[in-house]
């Protein structure tokens, strides 16, 4: 029983960054921007969050600078993709490389370390104990005592669902994704909405990064996003950008991540348990494409 509680608890913790980045990516998904740069935005956010927290001594500044880091990355992406009309895939890949290179370089430049930076001066996010619930056996440890962003991100999933599917702005956003020129023709700038969607994704990816480096753990290490941005991208494709689906799917991935963690120390070598979330992504993609194929009535479509 204790193992189960521990597993569910850790699955919520590891679902959060995927959920946050996924919610950000939902905006770009509906605006029809292929946002492969989420990985890089998250990594930059994780770095600037640690830097902000370390130099200011406050976790609030850390979170804010994490968001700012993601925002700057998104601005670069938006300038290139929307204003200069560069290819999204190409720009996103370059931005990911810039994030990897830039954080590695700054790690050395600012903190004079290679690999990872840990310090007592980094203020991590406070954990919230929810009164009453925290006293319920089993359920208490699962639901209570997480960094506050965990709760915020679940709430955010509902807000984003409402924003994309319940407001006029959301309607415009989805219209841009359907046909940008039609939106332009009625006097709404599709470029502007695309840029806003990219910025929204940057802010949320930055927040996801801040959670990684100040909530999930309290340190920054090279390439610490470790493919979570890409898993988020896969989850968005699997759920077709529905925030409620994202909430569910990221919990499922968190569960696999947690499964990997709890299998550690058993007979299975740790390297194999660490593979679990990535294998789960491939398996989920398999079910998704099977469903898609049967929805099309098994009709053959051009593959390439």
């Amino acid at each position, binding site marked *: 029983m204790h193992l189960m509680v521990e597993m569910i608890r850790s699955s919520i913790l590891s679902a959060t960054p995927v959920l946050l980045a996924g919610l950000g990516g939902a905006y770009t998904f509906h605006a029809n921007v292929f946002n492969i740069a989420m990985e890089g935005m998250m990594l930059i956010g994780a770095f600037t969050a640690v830097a902000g927290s370390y130099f200011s001594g406050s976790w609030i500044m850390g979170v804010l600078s994490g968001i700012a880091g993601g925002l700057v990355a998104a601005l670069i992406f938006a300038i290139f993709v929307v204003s200069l009309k560069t290819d999204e895939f190409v720009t996103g890949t370059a931005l990911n490389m810039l994030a990897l290179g830039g954080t590695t370089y700054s790690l050395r430049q600012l903190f004079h370390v290679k690999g990872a930076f840990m310090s007592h001066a980094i203020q991590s996010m406070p954990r919230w104990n929810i009164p009453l619930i925290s006293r319920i056996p089993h359920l208490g440890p699962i639901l209570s005592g997480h960094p506050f962003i965990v709760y915020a991100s679940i709430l955010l999933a509902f807000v984003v669902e409402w924003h994309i599917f319940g407001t006029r702005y959301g309607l415009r956003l989805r219209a841009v994704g359907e046909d940008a020129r039609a939106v332009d023709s009625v006097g709404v700038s599709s470029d502007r909405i695309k840029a806003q969607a990219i910025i929204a994704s940057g802010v949320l990816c930055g927040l996801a990064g801040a959670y990684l480096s100040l909530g999930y753990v309290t340190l920054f290490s090279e390439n610490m996003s470790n493919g979570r941005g890409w898993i988020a991208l896969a989850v968005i494709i699997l759920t077709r950008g529905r925030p409620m689906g994202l909430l569910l799917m990221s919990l499922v991935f968190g569960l696999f991540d947690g499964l990997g963690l709890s299998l550690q120390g058993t007979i299975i070598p740790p390297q194999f348990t660490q593979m679990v979330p990535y294998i789960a992504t491939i398996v989920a993609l*398999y079910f998704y494409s099977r469903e898609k194929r049967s929805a099309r009535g098994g009709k053959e479509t051009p593959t390439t």
Partner: protein
Amino acid sequence: MKKQVLPALIGIVVALLAGLLILWAQGYPPLESYAALFSYSLFSKFAFFSTLDKATPLILTGLSAAVGFGSNCVNLGQPGQFLIGAMAVTAFGIAVDLPAGLMIPLSILVALVAGACWSGIAAGLRRRFKMDEFITTLMLNFIADYFTLYLISGPMLDKRMYSPLTPMTNPGAWLPIWNGFGSAFLVAVAAFAVVSVLWNRSKIGYEWRAMGQNPIFSRTGGCRNDAAYVWAMLLSGALAGLAGGLMIMGGMQHRFVKGIGANYAWDGVMIAIVANNNMIATGLYALFFSVIQTGSMGMELETSVPSEFSLVLQAIVVLFVVASRESTRVLINNITAELRMRRARGRDKGMGDGRHASNG
């Protein structure tokens, strides 16, 4: 090709200037740093040979990405294919002991096949189940990473060592080093020649290029898209696998060490992107990137700029070259549209029927 040279040059110059600014802003002597960057990568025999050494994997991963992207296969699995290629060559080199004349060609073959198998998984999933290869290849990277880590810290661990690495391969599989010049570079050049000819002169190369431009057109035009797709994925994986294999066969180390892949695979992706999947440009950018990477060590030595600066510089080069390419294209399109509009207007005036061209 000629149309691409100017934007590429503008992009490189602007990026180098941006790098200069970054160095200056951080209080490093910018010009001395750049002088060190180039003198430690080009202006001595040893420096030049180490640049060629570094270029070897970059040429191959660059080709791998260019073949993939150029034929519309989004193979982002170079890191995994690289590791699997390197691991296969290591295992082969430890298990088999033959004279070099047999060992070297066989090891190269093993690297090619191993890389192709790893990309073949993604190609198969795409063909059989229509699963997007860009996600599957990305996920396979992590699987390859953990799998090789498992092998070098468990079954293939060199027990005499204190860090995760394998024993050395048998000397038959070592590529000779002549007077400081690593012959692995020649293998990369040969691969470059073969792939260039295949890409530009063969039937399947034509199909790849057509598929890269427009898959529906190529299908309508009678190309065998499905077969061409699988072959492009396999070739792409094989090249990345060879890049990994040569890391074991060339150099001095001859063993699989944790972190052997470094950033070579992603650098290759960037090289193909800046080269716009053109084969010659891929080769040239691979050399340029290896100049930056080799020279950055000298830069650290001379003006104490952290060598990681090369990563930043590379990414800036990519962004600026791509931006300059795309914006010159938009600019040229605008100019031609403007000219056409003026001509149309002139004609209207001549005919005097009062129609106006709109100022779109």
